[in-house]
């Protein structure tokens, strides 16, 4: 029994670690300025926790086997060892707290540093179960929206107030198209319940909360079409609420924007 249990714990440990290290399931390649730091911090955490995981599980397996009841010798009567307690307490404290401080730089860049004033601003609106994207147009200003005007059935999903001149040139799309290598600031809105903006390649996620204007900024560095699924449970269609982040060349983006503006 002892040997079997020790082997089972060891096998579970090694198989789990194998798939973390060599499994086919991994992050998609990153396309934002956070990606490199994110992947590094993840790897660092994986290595540290991996080492602890390995030694804790194998220590357990060893104890199970080594100190099985049938063994020769006496039980070591001991109520503990304060020096050891201090050792592993401080080792754990240094490792864990060190890790969290080490990784804060990504968070600081994503959330404490505001977007550059010259970044492209775009609104992302969630509703059950679609995304709408709004561009401010040539004036760079978003027009006022009114809940009572929000009618998808007549092509006004965001209810832009016709009396507000800033809204005249606003463009509403169903795909988040952006030019490559230019910083984008996303302003998140929700019409009804909480949704969540997530593009795995950006290494970014942020809830769209009704009543709040949550913000994100990023600079996409690779042209392509990336899926943008909803990441917060929003109702029965949650699993199909998806659009795309479409990173284009400057020229393609300008052309796309003109196409969107011309109905």
């Amino acid at each position, binding site marked *: 029994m*002892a040997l079997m*249990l020790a082997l*089972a714990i060891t096998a*579970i440990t090694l198989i789990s670690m194998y*798939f973390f290290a060599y*499994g086919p*399931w*991994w*992050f998609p390649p990153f396309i934002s300025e*956070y990606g490199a*730091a*994110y992947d590094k911090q*993840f790897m660092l*955490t994986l290595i540290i*926790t991996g080492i*602890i995981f390995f030694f*804790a599980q194998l220590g*357990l397996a060893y*104890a199970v086997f080594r*100190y*099985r*009841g049938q063994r020769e010798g006496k*039980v*070591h*009567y*001991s109520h*503990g*060892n*304060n020096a050891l*307690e201090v050792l*592993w*307490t401080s080792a*754990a404290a240094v490792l864990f707290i060190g890790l*969290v401080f080490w990784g*804060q730089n990504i*968070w600081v860049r994503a959330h404490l540093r505001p977007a550059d004033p010259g970044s492209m601003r775009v609104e992302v609106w969630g509703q*059950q179960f679609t995304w709408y994207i709004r561009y401010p147009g040539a004036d760079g200003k978003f027009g006022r929206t009114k*809940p*009572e005007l929000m009618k998808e059935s007549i092509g006004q999903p965001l*209810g832009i107030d016709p009396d507000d001149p800033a809204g005249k040139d606003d463009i509403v799309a169903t795909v988040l198209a952006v030019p490559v290598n230019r910083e984008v600031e996303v302003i998140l809105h929700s019409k*009804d*319940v*909480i949704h969540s903006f*997530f593009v*795995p390649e950006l290494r*970014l*996620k*942020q809830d769209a909360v*009704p*009543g*709040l204007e949550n913000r994100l900024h990023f600079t996409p560095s690779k042209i392509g079409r990336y*899926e943008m699924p909803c*990441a*917060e*449970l929003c*109702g*029965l269609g*949650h*699993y199909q609420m*998806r659009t795309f982040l479409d990173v284009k060349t400057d020229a393609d983006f300008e052309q796309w924007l003109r196409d969107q503006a011309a109905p």
Partner: protein
Amino acid sequence: MGHTAGTHDAHAVHEAPQSFIRKYIFSYDHKVIGIQYWFLALTAVFVGMALSLYMRLRLAWPSAHFPLLGSGPMTPETYLSLLTMHGTIMVFFVLTTAPQGGFGNYALPIQIGAADMAFPFLNMMSFWVTFVAFAVMVSAFFVTGGAPLGGWTAYPPLSALGAITGPGEGTGMTLWIISIALFCVGALLGALNFIATTIDLRTKGMSLMRMPLTVWAWFITAILGLLAFGVLLAGGILLLMDRLAGTSFFIPGGLVVSEQVMVSHSGGSPLLWQHLFWFFGHPEVYIAILPGMGAASQILSVFSRKPIFGYRAMVYAMLSIGILGFLVWGHHMFISGMSPYSAMAFSVMTLSIGVPSAIKTFNWIGTMWGGKIRFTAPMLYAIGFVSLFVSGGLSGIFLGQPSLDLYLHDTYFVVGHFHLVMGVAAIFGMFAGTTYWFPKMFGRMMHEGLGKLHFWITFPGVYAIFMPMHYLGIAGHMRRYADTTGVNYLAALQPVHVFITVAAIITISAQLLFVINIFWSMFKGPKATENPWEATTLEWTVPSPPPHDNFGGKMPVVYHGAYEYSVPGAAKDYVMQTSPEAVPHSGH
């Protein structure tokens, strides 16, 4: 109320009842109430597990037809109802009910040398309120629209606007809130009772630092419960008022659902609910796991025939987990739009919880180190508990960092994490507790072979279910998705879902072995002696099962801590807490 006076008062409160109803239904006896809680949790865990089985079937084979669900494939709203009810039933009616209400009620008074809980009537009330809460929860399946689909966290506005946001969000959601509110009342009554009992009713010689770690765990859990459930109760009432009385605590103005403007609401904050919910919800994690830690500590020491390694460190670790547990709720909200500065503070507090958790893990292994391990069924489960707690705890080191949460939040990585650490680790604590205390509770031994067989399927089984979920999360798989058809990159992950489902079918089937073992042993198991495990604590000084007032009117006197095994020079390899024999370190 002094110690000894308190003991006698409690004893005098009630005489052994004669009628069936007073003895087994509306009983004041903490042992009967403990068994009632335990049966309630056993019922609930099978409901919750059946729900998860259906969820797994849908995830593996989205277009297949399943029995009991009518014609056609399972709808996404049904999937979400199962998900919501699975989470709710498991967290509240299993993870909170069995470890604390069940084992705590049964064993705490005996382990501290009391005749009963401080407030036996309150104890009975807390069980029956919890029972009604469960009935109300299950009834949500049978009303128009069915059970709610907003997840066990019930985030508004989805949970606050009524049926317009989805089926199940009408009457089903209202019943959900009422059930949770009732549950909070029951939990609060229970928590008060545990605290008063531990403080007031300890027998002569049972100083705080001689209490078994199980008692410390239940005591700290009760304090957490007292502070946390009140907040959830308040939050639940506010949410109910938003739904029924037209208030707007959690509902901002200008919402448009299905082109309909929610004109009657303005000014509320969805994040307020999240703060209230997680101020309860995070301590709840420790409410679920602390009693398991206590049971594991107890069992590891008993079956290693060795004193617990670092008793005081274990107590302080549990206390600091309890305190820190109230300062970390924001780590559930890193992505919510809460202040990014507070996220950084919450993350430091969160990673700090890794420190007492590491202490406990090392001390468990230290307890086994140098011992002579008896591989009984409870010991196997306790070892499994340690392994699962380590595995589940370490993925928390990822999720506690807001930077890494930017990607991992709301993915299967989270699902894998919490199922290992507060789900199956706590469940293994319950397996351990059940097999360990069963002889005392029912006077008969459980079948060892059946118990071991169950362990050998379940232990690898839960790893096969929950470890791959981490890989899904790394690959970017969002949680709470009814299937993988809506997002292209998820299609490649479908084989993992099939694997997990197969593992789940096998593991869930094996749980029948445990139930068969329980009911077979209850009637056919070999008679249990007073102290079948050769353990030192007070419940093993009384007959199995104990008499109505536990000690037959003769209260025990305690001379040692609870972990005197293999004492050099002692007559046997253990010294009972009630034995006046001298031992080294008898100070604790």
